[in-house]
């Protein structure tokens, strides 16, 4: 390998240039630098299937005690025991075994018809139209509703949640529907959860929540007991977060990939028995979670290089999934290929516990979409992609039903957008704001309460079970700024910088060294 080639190999999860198509870089990493070290962010990365497999299977050498996301490992983040994705044995084992008895393939399959009905509800009203959005219309709706249903959130509450979200969408008509939409759905689904848990305790049913409340388990200290409220709340947050975002991305990739491969889409329409294989190929080809991380627990050597104890190791699952030594023509999407297991659900003791649900939702969604819309074409001018340290996929994927209209003219590069018309009356800042930060682990809801004292504002922000005062709140024109020193999941200063429009503030939340993440605050 010459040094010029080596120099041009560079990868990190924050490099936006690589988000649309990271695969050529992954191929170079596999072939030229199977152990990659990134100096700027101080992490190692492996990209070959065999290396990733060996790493994921070795839970003693590669620890999850500080999580599976780069930033969390660097911050030596510590989570409550019940956040079992973030633990090693024996803590992990105690909670995982319990959840394994609750999230079973049997339970998932029992709700297949309900999930089909949820798809119909999302898709039926689109029949006869000329466009729809794989994310807004299906991905942001169905997985969230499926998780709510499995948890046993009563239909009337789900309806209330949906209506409130729909109302908000109407007030924002004319603006592109952004992520806040999906985040708000999840946030509202989880709001008032304590109340719901208490209600379910008095009204047991056959849902997951009842089982979480009633099942005995042996805790990490060896005591046989039931879960506490806090533990249930943590587990539900992990399950709901993991089950919404990733399946949403899977549905987006379905829309994009089948649009690009109309011949294979036709094969599936002709023979729906191909759908399970098509879902596996989709999971291999465009994994919603493209990388996982671990902490290295001993000094080791790999591919002739030393890795020190304590290092962060990223496993490029999306690169391993296309490793030519395992998948012939790995960069080709081919639903007819010889079926070999991919790495999208991880491996080893932390393998995705929701995989049976993801596969079921993927299969049913593909069946129900193709039944109604055998052909579509993506409107790339309006599609929006994003990538974080944990997921990569579409925030919006609008398509033309059938094909792109013949007389379609691509919109010209936007002239500087005119400032949105000022609302008739300024929203009052004092009061309650629902804040959602799109963090590396998914949407993080919080509630901001503001009080006015003359011209200045004070207040507090509550999230992750704690409330901390805010500081330096400023409003200059439409620009809003405040600081929140949070203590959970780690001590860190978060600076919010945004713009007020109507009753919504959108902007960036800068969380110290962890980087900036988009946020939305909506006046309650």
């Amino acid at each position, binding site marked *: 390998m010459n040094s010029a080639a080596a120099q041009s190999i560079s990868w990190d999860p924050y490099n936006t240039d690589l988000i649309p198509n990271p695969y050529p870089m992954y191929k170079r990493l596999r072939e030229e630098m199977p152990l990659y070290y990134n100096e700027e962010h101080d992490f190692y990365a492996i990209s070959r299937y065999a290396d990733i*497999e060996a790493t*994921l*299977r070795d839970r003693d050498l590669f620890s999850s005690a500080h999580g599976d996301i780069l930033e969390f490992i660097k911050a030596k983040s510590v989570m409550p025991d019940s956040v079992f994705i973030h633990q090693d044995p024996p803590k992990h084992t105690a909670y*995982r*075994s319990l959840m*394994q*008895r609750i999230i*079973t*393939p*049997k*339970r998932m*399959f029992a709700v297949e018809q309900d999930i089909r009905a949820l798809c119909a509800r999302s898709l039926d009203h689109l029949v006869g139209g000329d466009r729809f959005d794989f994310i807004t219309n299906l991905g942001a709706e169905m997985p969230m509703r499926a998780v709510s249903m499995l948890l046993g959130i009563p239909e009337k509450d789900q309806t209330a949640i949906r209506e409130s979200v729909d109302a908000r969408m109407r007030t924002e008509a004319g603006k592109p529907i952004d992520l806040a939409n999906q985040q708000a759905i999840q946030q509202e689904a989880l709001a008032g959860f304590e109340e719901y848990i208490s209600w379910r305790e008095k009204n047991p049913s056959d849902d997951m929540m009842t089982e979480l409340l009633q099942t005995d388990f042996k805790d990490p200290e060896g005591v046989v007991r039931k879960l506490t409220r806090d533990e249930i709340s943590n587990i539900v947050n992990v399950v709901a977060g993991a089950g919404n975002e990733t399946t949403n991305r899977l549905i987006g990739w379905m829309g994009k990939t089948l649009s690009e491969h109309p011949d294979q889409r036709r094969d599936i329409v002709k023979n729906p028995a191909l759908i*399970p294989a098509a879902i596996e190929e989709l999971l291999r080809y465009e994994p919603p979670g493209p990388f996982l991380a671990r902490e290295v627990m001993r000094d080791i050597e790999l591919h002739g290089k030393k890795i020190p104890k304590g290092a962060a190791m990223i496993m490029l699952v999306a690169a391993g999934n296309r490793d030519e030594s395992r998948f012939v023509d790995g960069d080709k999407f081919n639903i007819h290929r*010889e*079926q*070999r*297991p991919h790495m999208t*659900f991880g*491996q*080893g*003791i932390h*393998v*995705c*516990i929701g*995989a*049976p649900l993801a*596969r*079921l939702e993927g299969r049913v969604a593909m069946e129900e979409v193709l039944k109604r819309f055998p052909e579509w074409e993506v409107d790339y001018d309006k599609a929006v992609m994003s990538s974080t340290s944990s997921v990569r996929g579409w925030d919006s994927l609008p398509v033309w039903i059938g094909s792109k209209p013949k007389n379609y003219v691509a919109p010209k590069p936007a002239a500087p957008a005119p400032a949105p018309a000022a609302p008739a009356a300024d929203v009052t800042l004092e009061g309650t704001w629902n804040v959602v930060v799109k963090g590396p682990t998914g949407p993080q809801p919080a509630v901001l309460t503001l009080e006015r004292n003359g011209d200045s504002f004070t207040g507090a922000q509550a999230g992750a079970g704690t409330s901390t005062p805010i500081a330096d709140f400023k409003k200059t024109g439409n620009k809003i700024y405040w600081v929140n020193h949070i203590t959970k999941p780690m001590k860190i200063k978060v600076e919010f910088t945004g713009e007020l429009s109507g009753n919504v503030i959108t902007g960036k939340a800068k969380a110290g060294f962890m980087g900036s993440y988009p946020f939305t605050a909506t006046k309650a």
Partner: protein
Amino acid sequence: MPKILYIEHNGKEHVVDADVGKSVMQNALENLVPGIIGDCGGACSCATCHGYIDPAWEGKAGSRNENEEMMLDGALRVEPNSRLTCQVIMTQELDGLVVRLPESQF
């Protein structure tokens, strides 16, 4: 080398020269036997390596452990001779083992 005969749900047979000491799941994966997935790689955490041990081999193949029992409890299409094949380790005595595979692993 001892042999394992895997029979897919559609009746298709695969005879494999098995490595002693590796699981029946791992032997299937390394020989590209379709119908066994093994998502978790042998950690008894996913139930996607489900197989039916031919009754003639039930004694020799050992019995389910506690963890496996729990996983099978929530799995689909479970029969009395169901095993998670990652928990059955290949030995010389199992030469000729017959494993039938379910219609689907999920």
